[in-house]
């Protein structure tokens, strides 16, 4: 993924209403545009899709979709981009089956690719229904499948979980990650949710009032001091991929193994089967640091590591240990004598972990 660092090339400018949007970025195959509402995220997505006229250049996978200096402007129907608007925008007069068929060549019936996607996103029971009888989460799954079945060069996702309750949001993200893994389709997601950006994308564009504040690898951009202070209202959420090991219903817990191999205990999550992949989050505030292996604590998770850096922001210090960030006070840092290189144990309660996708 990191090898193709300029799969998506954007250099666009347009004025719409009171907003002057100017975005230039070269991105890899999974990218997120992160910004507050009103920053111009949806407008940018529409411009990339060719639904809105903008000056400048867009290329995806080396294919030039528009270039105003060369007089090129491909209409949306010739761009082969899979646009999934907020809430999905299914055609209300067509059944789910016909919505899914809309972007496919005429007469292509239920081929293996279609069946595989229907199975992956669990759409079989929905096929005969009409959009008005679907829940918000179901609509989004159908919209995602409809876009994918047109075999796009790039998926454009607009706020894929907005307005969904936590469980449905979790399932929606998991669905996107599953099709992403199975079809290896490149994606560009716009969102106001830092966690969603970290979950779906390896690169991030920070957008504010139509201007690019920062571009780069997601974790690096998001843990810049300014972003730590401002992004998500000063909250940092660690996101980690894991695989489910087993359930302990009598103990109220579920055991998972993190990508790095560490075993972690999370709240009982019976709807996922052992072996299932999932994404976990934990707030920086909920990670404790110990300078010795912890004993006699009720917290059930401890991971050993070494401090990489201390990031002071206002009256807080963000301590980075490998991929993890813990949020401490300057007093705690002084008392424990923490500096870069100090060996530490990260400690977390079972109930501090939340499943964001799975």
């Amino acid at each position, binding site marked *: 993924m990191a090898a193709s660092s300029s799969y998506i090339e954007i250099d666009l400018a347009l004025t719409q209403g009171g907003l002057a949007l100017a975005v230039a970025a070269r991105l890899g195959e999974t990218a997120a545009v992160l910004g507050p509402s009103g920053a111009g995220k949806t407008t940018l997505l*529409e411009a990339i*899709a*060719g*639904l809105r006229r903008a000056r400048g250049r867009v290329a995806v996978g080396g294919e030039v979709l528009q270039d105003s200096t060369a007089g090129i402007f491909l*209409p*949306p*129907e010739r*761009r*082969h*981009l*899979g*646009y999934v*608007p907020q809430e999905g*925008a299914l*055609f*209300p*007069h067509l059944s789910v089956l016909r919505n899914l068929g*809309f*972007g496919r060549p005429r007469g292509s019936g239920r081929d293996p690719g279609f069946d595989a996607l229907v199975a992956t996103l669990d759409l079989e029971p929905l096929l005969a229904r009409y959009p*008005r009888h679907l829940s918000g989460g179901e609509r989004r799954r159908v919209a995602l499948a*409809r*876009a994918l079945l*047109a075999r796009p060069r790039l998926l454009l996702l607009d706020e894929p979980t907005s307005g969904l309750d936590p469980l449905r949001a979790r399932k929606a993200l998991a669905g996107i990650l599953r099709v992403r893994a199975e079809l290896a389709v490149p994606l560009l997601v716009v969102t106001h949710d830092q966690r969603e950006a970290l979950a779906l994308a390896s690169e991030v564009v920070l957008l504010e009032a139509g201007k690019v504040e920062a571009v780069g690898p997601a974790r690096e951009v998001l843990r810049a001091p300014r972003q730590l202070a401002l992004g998500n209202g000063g909250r940092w959420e660690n996101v980690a991929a894991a695989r489910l090991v087993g359930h302990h219903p009598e103990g109220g817990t579920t055991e998972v193994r993190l990508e790095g191999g560490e075993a972690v205990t999370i709240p009982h999550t019976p709807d996922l089967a052992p072996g299932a992949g999932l994404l976990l989050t934990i707030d920086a505030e909920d990670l404790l640091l110990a300078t010795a292996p912890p004993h006699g604590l009720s917290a059930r998770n401890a991971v050993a590591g070494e401090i990489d850096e201390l990031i002071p922001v206002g009256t807080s210090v963000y301590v980075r240990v490998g991929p993890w960030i813990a949020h401490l006070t300057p007093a705690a840092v002084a008392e424990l004598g923490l500096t870069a290189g100090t060996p530490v144990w990260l400690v977390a309660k079972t109930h501090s972990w939340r499943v964001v996708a799975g």
Partner: protein
Amino acid sequence: MAAGATLLLVLPGLAVAWVLSRPRFRFRALVETLVSLPLVLPPTAVGLGLLLLFGRSGPLGRLLYEELGIEVAFTWRGVVLASAVVAFPLFVRSARSSLEEIDPRLPAVARTLGRGPLAVFLEVELPLAWRGVTAGAVLAFARGLGEFGATILVAGNIPGRTQTLALALFQRVQVGRDREALGLAAISVLLAAAALVLSEALVHRRDRTLSR
């Protein structure tokens, strides 16, 4: 005649309604005014205008007659034309408002799924707006039935050829055949009421089925 007028106005009416429903259409005010003009002008003024354009010596009338051998003024074609022009704004208004009610993201998504603008109109916009379009056509038909002012100027009042229901009624009253006039009035009340009921029913069903 009214049915012919409705058929004549549907395609151009849809085209104008579609153009007016585009949010970024530049000449909206101009087109809107031109389209609505027949609604507020005295129908006789519209008829006079049509007569000047389509009469034997009018620019369009001469062209049609010399090139195609088609006479418009004082024929059944004149009746159809007059009714169509007068009913045009009613159809456009109804069709346009139902096109504007469509979530703009639906045609947008259809474009990204590989459909050109015409295919999007036929496969997404028209099916979603059809109730409003049909209601507009029914209204236009009803308006055409009662057309009087424009018709009498363009087509005259030739019994059996260019005499419409409204013209026939007027003539019966003039010659004192009140009983026949009342019969014709009753027929027109029935036709108009039926058209209005049908059109209202369509509009209300649209409200119900599209509310989520």
